[in-house]
């Protein structure tokens, strides 16, 4: 299946590929801390297992980014 993943065209073996499976294939260690857009639309984390990719889909994922200095010295 041909998919554009984070801007790169890739061929992923198999069909019926879920977002969760794709993140596993891409070695994402903390999928709960990843945001995913499929065709430019956010995929709720609760739907990662059920949202399926199809030929020529465009999927982007990126990690939660946060932190903080804690204020004082």
């Amino acid at each position, binding site marked *: 299946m041909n998919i554009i993943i*984070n*801007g790169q065209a890739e061929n992923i073996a198999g069909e019926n590929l879920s977002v969760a499976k794709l993140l596993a294939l891409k070695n994402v*260690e*903390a999928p709960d*801390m*990843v*945001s995913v*857009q499929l065709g430019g639309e*956010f995929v709720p984390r609760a739907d990662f297992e059920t949202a399926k990719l199809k030929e020529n889909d465009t999927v*982007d994922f*990126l*990690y*939660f*980014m*946060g*932190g*903080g*200095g*804690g*204020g*004082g*010295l």
Partner: protein
Amino acid sequence: MLSISRRILAEIYAHGLRDRPLEACGYLAGRDRLVCRYYPLTNVDKSPEHFTLDPAEQFAAVRSARQYGCNILAVAHTHPASPARPSPEDIRLAYDPDILYVIYSLLEPPTVKAFSIRRGQAVAAELNIEE
């Protein structure tokens, strides 16, 4: 290692001053470890002690960077009242192993440092400042 111009550092600093006392944050995009663009993003926490990037803005910045042939090289954030070193929260929440973390302290004198943070370990990264 990350190379960055004084002009882009000045952009981060100016963003930090604008948002102070809140933490300011953004993405640094570039190629071959050379930063060519700063994307100031919204700190949705609106806090002087924490920051979280807005995911919708993250995606928009990533796509914009791609149009320039760039990747996201680092996330930058300011510490308005603490040194330029990763806090325990910075380390705990550093999930992306592929980018660097740039911290700009607004304490006098202002200082900026870069770190690699992987699996709970922060290691200083060389920051090459170019004219």
